[in-house]
């Protein structure tokens, strides 16, 4: 940080308490499967330093421009700004996109080759992340891809109006630039092929993804006009001709089903209905996407189960549904006699995907230097989870091939003087994302979200509580003068009689009931808005701000 | 002529040995079993032209005041003594220095002013003194020898007294003084016939002689005084001098501090620790102290403040008497600040009532202002004081174990007195403050709390009544004229009443050492039984009368005597007769 005093002591800590501090006090980072340093890059954006912001992202989650658009945003759900009474969570994902929009630059670290070869099967998010991480360690990485282009679900599963293709190209290119080789149109057909790969390489990683739609068993599935979510998207994305549609019913409450409805809108359908077993609250999709759907005129029908396909002459005419009743244990039960029909000429079942069961022969394991990663290992998940798994497996590969004893979490604690945040930032409203007008939403290619302009992204970044700054009072120096409590913007500093440590390592002050009990003045980092008022007010300089960053080092 | 009572006055300028003469005579008389009262009046200056007189009245029976007039004047300073001649009664005598003076005009010579009805005795005091000691000092002793002969006093008691007093100065001094005495005696013996004879009872037992200040000091020490802080001020210094000498012997201490503020401060500090502490001062000092007396009222700290009154206001008359400090003692404080005010009437009172003062102060956690005055404090008096060592009737009330659990320094009680522990004692702690506070002693400015606490402080003064020294009714119970007075004027008024009675006018008097609070019932009964009430006091305003008027709704005849000399019993009697005349008309 540029406001860091020269000559300050930077501490490296492996203390479990500090590690837990990060998990608890930086909820966004903890929620992120790949542990992106969210406050780090948001701080950089708030200072207008998009390049730093991009680099932080590039290092942590490999695909910043892509994830800046289509990430499932577990971070935003965890964001402290969205906690009770604190307003809306930060638009973290869109800020990531801003970092990529304005800070994109060549990522060309010096790589020392170690002359070990790794082959990765599948060029989806997991495979690409593994490839990136291993390439950076000096491995010679080759990716095999069954389709004509790399990207997997990124390219074929997600519609262009959400994720333009040049963005995908760019992020993939950034990985290939590290020396990763890719062989497209190469599909694993036999066990022998894998044996061969194992011979040629020091390790093989299977990142095959979940490319098969889950199917269900109701009558009439063979009618014309009934299709599966992933097939529908693949066809649409690969510009294969689809039959014209007017009334579309999509069954399912996940990302794919939402994409299908919106894609149907762009393909000219008029009446589009999304049906789901449960309620709106139970959908995994973010609120902003539901809003987009609503704006595009898509209707919702909740608490219904498909019961059959109505067809005429082999062509679908409607879907028969039955209404559901939620039981106390949150499971659902159909209500007898509540059947009804929704008219449709196209029915899309988007109820999940599963991995292809094509691994022949005996089960290969890490012992054989054979690793599995991504959705193929975990089942269908999100891009960020797949990338995280890719990274995890890459580490395992590296550990095995380079005899790493263990990975250790090291927390760098850097003292800083100012956070640069002020109380006024709390009153900046959530910056809404600009979207293209409804009239233009019939274009399949046109990205709906137009991205934050610079000033908007800076404003939004300013809202961030910068949870990675740890405010602590040195009890040995504190004179209990309450100056900090006097200037605190919210109820963030407590006169404490004790500090309670929960099982998960969270520390919080136990407020003293009266002055007699006061043992310490303690800053509640859960409530701290990092404005630094207390630091400035403290007459004896006993309040320290330190920036917590997490690194993982290899122990040989 | 035979005398049963004599009043002798020595007059001189400072340094003439006036005081020592009077001490010798009074001591001698007391040893001989005579009742003595000595009053010194001297100027504020140490040496130089300041005039000082010492009057000794002695009698075979009890003396209550300095009486009216003198029998003999010893004029050690010519010019200064002239004024004193008018006090000499018919047939009295003047002893003056007949040594050849340098150049002294007639108007300044004492002899020329002696009226026909007074006998003048010229004695070469200076010459004889030089003869005896080789210096002018000792003229007082020479004149004493002369006096001894002139009134036929027994020589031995004086010789014994001179030996006793000068013993510590060495044999030589004793000898030269004895010589001077003898020379004066002999000169007179040779020169003048024995015209007068003082008749005395040779079997009388020796009497104790004590001044009011001494009585206060000893009374206080005898009832447990352990700490005295003070600042020298006439006429209270003597008290401090005594305690300074005596307290260390009792494991106590006297400290002379930088001013009266510090004095009362230190007293409050000491009292805070549970020590019986006292200070003594005069009017100007009391003015300085009033702030901290207020604090002691508010914080409820015991303290005894002796005020030996002198003429005021401001520096006023440092060496003259006046009863002018009653108002400041009663009312001299910001806000409603009640305090106990006591006024002793004689040395015996001084001894006993200072002990009563401590009892009240300690038990009721309040300041007590003890109003002595210059006359009472300095006059020597024979009295039969029964020594009362370790007289501790009441002490501070300790909290019970139950009360200690949630100790409240200013707990509300029925009598207004909160149980008290002091620093160094286990169980609880507290802070005291001059700020308005709640029962715990913490500052509190709510009007309700303030009212409650003020009521509590005043309640003490109601519950105190049962512990007050009793009121005395003196004189004829059937008299129509009732008299009220306070402090040292009591003696003169008592004698005045006797004179009036002699002249056929019966009176009665209410004698109360307590000024505030008073046993109001007794006062009310007394005033109700009187047709006419006279209030005598030595100030211009009638401060006591004002108090009585406002408290008892009476309309007394107020007699204000803003005189700087002791009150004359004859004048008191005259006033009584006047009132009686009005009453009988």
């Amino acid at each position, binding site marked *: 940080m540029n406001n860091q005093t020269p000559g*300050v002591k930077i*501490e490296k800590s492996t*203390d479990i*308490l*500090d590690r837990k*501090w990060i998990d608890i006090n930086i909820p966004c980072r903890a929620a992120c499967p790949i542990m992106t340093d969210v406050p780090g890059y948001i701080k950089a954006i708030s200072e207008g330093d998009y390049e730093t912001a991009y680099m932080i992202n590039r290092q942590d989650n490999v695909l910043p421009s892509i994830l800046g658009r289509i990430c499932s945003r577990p971070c935003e759900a965890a964001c402290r700004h969205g906690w009770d009474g604190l307003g809306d969570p930060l638009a973290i994902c869109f800020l990531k996109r801003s970092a990529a929009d304005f800070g994109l630059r060549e990522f060309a670290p010096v790589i020392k080759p170690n002359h070990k070869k790794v082959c990765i099967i599948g060029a989806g998010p997991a495979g690409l992340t593994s490839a990136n991480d291993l390439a950076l360690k000096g491995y010679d990485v080759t990716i095999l891809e069954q389709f004509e282009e790399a990207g997997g679900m990124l390219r074929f599963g997600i519609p262009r109006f959400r994720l333009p293709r040049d963005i995908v190209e760019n992020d993939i290119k950034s990985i290939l630039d590290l020396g990763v080789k890719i062989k497209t149109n190469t599909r694993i057909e036999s066990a022998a092929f894998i044996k061969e790969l194992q011979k040629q390489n020091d390790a093989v990683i299977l990142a095959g993804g979940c490319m098969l739609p889950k199917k269900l068993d109701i009558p009439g599935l063979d009618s014309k006009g009934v299709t599966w979510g992933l097939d529908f998207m693949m066809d649409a994305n690969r510009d294969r001709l689809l039959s014209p549609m007017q009334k579309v019913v999509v069954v399912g409450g996940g990302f794919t089903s939402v994409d299908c409805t919106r894609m149907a809108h762009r393909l000219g359908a008029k009446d589009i209905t999304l049906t789901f077993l449960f309620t709106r609250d139970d959908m995994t999709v973010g609120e902003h996407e539901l809003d987009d759907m609503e704006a595009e005129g898509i209707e919702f029908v909740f608490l219904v189960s498909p019961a059959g396909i109505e067809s005429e002459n082999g062509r679908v005419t409607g879907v028969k549904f039955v209404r559901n009743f939620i039981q106390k244990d949150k499971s659902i039960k159909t209500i007898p006699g509540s059947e009804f029909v929704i008219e449709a000429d196209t029915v899309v079942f988007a109820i999940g995907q599963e991995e292809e069961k094509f691994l022949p022969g005996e089960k290969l394991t890490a012992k054989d230097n054979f690793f599995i990663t991504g959705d193929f290992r975990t089942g269908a998940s999100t891009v960020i989870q797949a990338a995280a798994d890719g990274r995890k497996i890459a580490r395992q590969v590296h550990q095995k091939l380079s005899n790493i004893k263990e990975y250790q979490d090291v*927390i760098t*604690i850097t*003292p800083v003087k100012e956070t640069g945040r002020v109380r006024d930032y709390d009153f900046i409203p959530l910056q809404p994302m600009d979207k293209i007008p409804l009239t233009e939403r019939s274009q399949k290619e046109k990205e709906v979200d137009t991205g934050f302009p610079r000033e908007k992204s800076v404003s939004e970044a300013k809202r961030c509580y910068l949870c990675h700054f*740890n405010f*602590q009072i040195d*009890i*040995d120096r504190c*004179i209990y*003068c*309450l*100056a900090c409590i*006097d*200037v605190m913007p919210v109820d963030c500093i407590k006169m404490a009689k*004790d*500090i309670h440590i929960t099982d998960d390592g969270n520390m919080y002050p136990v407020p003293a009931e009266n*002055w*007699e009990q*006061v*043992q310490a003045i303690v800053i509640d980092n859960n409530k701290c808005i990092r404005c630094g008022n207390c630091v400035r007010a403290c*007459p*004896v*300089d*006993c309040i*320290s701000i*330190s920036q917590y960053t997490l690194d993982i080092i290899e122990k040989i | 002529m035979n005398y049963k009572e004599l009043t002798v006055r020595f007059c001189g300028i400072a340094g003439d040995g006036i005081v020592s003469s009077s001490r010798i005579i009074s001591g001698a008389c007391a040893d001989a079993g005579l009742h003595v009262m000595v009053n010194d009046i001297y100027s504020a200056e140490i040496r130089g032209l300041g005039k000082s007189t010492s009057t000794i009245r002695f009698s075979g029976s009890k003396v209550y005041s300095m009486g009216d007039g003198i029998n003999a004047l010893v004029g050690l300073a010519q010019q200064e003594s002239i004024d004193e001649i008018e006090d000499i009664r018919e047939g009295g005598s003047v002893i003056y220095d007949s040594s050849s003076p340098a150049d002294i005009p007639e108007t300044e010579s004492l002899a020329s002013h002696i009226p026909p009805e007074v006998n003048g005795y010229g004695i070469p005091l200076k010459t004889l003194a030089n003869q005896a000691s080789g210096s002018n000092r000792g003229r007082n002793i020479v004149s004493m020898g002369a006096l001894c002969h002139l009134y036929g006093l027994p020589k031995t008691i004086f010789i014994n007294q001179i030996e006793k007093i000068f013993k510590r100065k060495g044999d030589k001094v004793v000898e030269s003084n004895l010589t001077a005495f003898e020379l004066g005696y002999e000169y007179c013996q040779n020169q003048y016939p024995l015209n007068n004879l003082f008749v005395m009872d040779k079997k009388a037992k020796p009497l104790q002689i004590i001044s009011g200040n001494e009585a206060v000091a000893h009374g206080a020490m005898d009832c447990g005084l*352990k*700490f005295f*802080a003070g600042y020298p001020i006439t006429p209270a210094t003597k008290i401090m001098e005594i305690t300074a000498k005596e307290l260390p*012997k009792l*494991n106590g201490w006297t*400290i002379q*501090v*930088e001013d009266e503020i*510090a*004095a*009362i*401060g230190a007293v*409050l*500090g*000491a*009292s*805070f*620790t*549970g020590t019986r*502490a006292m200070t003594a001062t005069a009017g100007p000092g009391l003015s300085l102290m009033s702030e901290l007396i207020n604090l002691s009222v508010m914080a409820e700290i015991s303290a005894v403040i002796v005020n030996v009154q002198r003429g005021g206001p401001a520096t006023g008359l440092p060496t003259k008497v006046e009863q002018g400090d009653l108002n400041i003692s009663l009312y001299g404080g910001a806000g409603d600040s009640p305090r106990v005010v006591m006024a002793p009437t004689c040395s015996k009172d001084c001894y006993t009532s200072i002990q009563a003062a401590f009892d009240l102060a300690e038990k009721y956690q309040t300041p007590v202002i003890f109003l002595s005055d210059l006359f009472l404090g300095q006059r020597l008096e024979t009295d039969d004081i029964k020594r009362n060592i370790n007289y501790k009737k009441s002490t501070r009330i300790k909290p019970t174990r139950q009360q200690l659990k949630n100790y409240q320094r200013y707990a509300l009680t029925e009598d207004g007195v909160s149980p008290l522990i002091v*620093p*160094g004692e*286990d169980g609880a*702690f507290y*802070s*005291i*403050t001059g*700020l308005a506070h709640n029962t715990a002693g913490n*500052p509190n400015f709510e009007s309700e709390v303030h009212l409650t606490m003020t009521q509590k402080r005043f309640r003490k003064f109601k519950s105190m009544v049962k512990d007050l020294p009793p009121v005395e009714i003196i004189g004829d119970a059937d008299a129509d004229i009732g008299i009220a007075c306070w402090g040292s004027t009591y003696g003169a008024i008592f004698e005045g009443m006797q004179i009036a009675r002699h002249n056929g006018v019966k009176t009665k008097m209410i004698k109360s050492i307590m000024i505030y609070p008073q046993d109001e019932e007794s006062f009310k009964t007394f005033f109700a039984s009187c047709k006419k009430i006279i209030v005598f006091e030595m100030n211009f305003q009638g401060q006591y009368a004002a108090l009585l008027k406002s408290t008892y709704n009476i309309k007394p005849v107020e007699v204000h005597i803003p005189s700087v000399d002791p009150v004359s019993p004859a004048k008191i009697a005259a006033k009584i007769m006047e009132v009686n005349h009005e009453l009988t008309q």
Partner: protein
Amino acid sequence: MNSLNKRAVLEGLERAKIKNKSKWRDILPTWCPGCGHFTALNGLYEAALDLKIPEKNFVVVSGIGCSGRFPFFIKGFGFHALHGRALPIATGIKIANPELTVIVVGGDGDGVGIGGGHFPHAVRNNLDITYILLDNSIYGLTKGQVSPTSPVGMISGTTPYGNIARPINPTTLALAYGATFVARVFSRERQDVSDLIKQALQHKGFSLIHDLSPCVEFNRLITYKSWNQVVGKFPEDYKADNRTLALQYAESKEPVYLGLFLKENIPTFNDHVKQIFKKIDSTEKS
């Protein structure tokens, strides 16, 4: 500026818990947040707890002013007296009961203003009391008027054209009066304050702690910052045993020295009293 990790905070708390066990009375100090007096309050407490002075023997006397509220915040006996009159009262307390640990707390107005006349005599008597003079160079409780230690030129409510009178230096005064323990501390340094107060409490005789305790509300001239710029430490070889040298250091404006200026050991008032008692006892016996 050091960073603090969580463990350091916890350890600090443990230390605080040991130190602060039964720390203060259940009355929240009435001072403005940030007031330097808090340091003195803490320092006094830490020192008292370190020295294991029992609460029953702990007496704090104060005058009027912001410092005057001290007695209400400590666990011990307190005497909130009148303006400037704390020293005489402490004198009485200490003479009457030498077993007590007597601490006088006063401000600059209290100590060298209205109570200035008592100061030399308290020093002169050399009673074993500790005087903590909290110097903020302003009359805070009356909302900002010049005090005896305010600099020349200071604009205040009562000196709208600037203060003409020159400031008093309490440290110098105490040295000149002959105090046997003189130290100057700065409220910013809690550890130093407690250390020196501890030393002062241990010292036999009158000890002065001159605490530069900025007023955060009314004094815009003399602040934590302004003091922080001028304060300095004694040279390492400084031995606090030379009054003349101490006076030189005390007068220094640049830097304003912090620490122990002088420490002398001479018999205290109570020592003398004890000796006199002994003497009287022996003469009475003989």
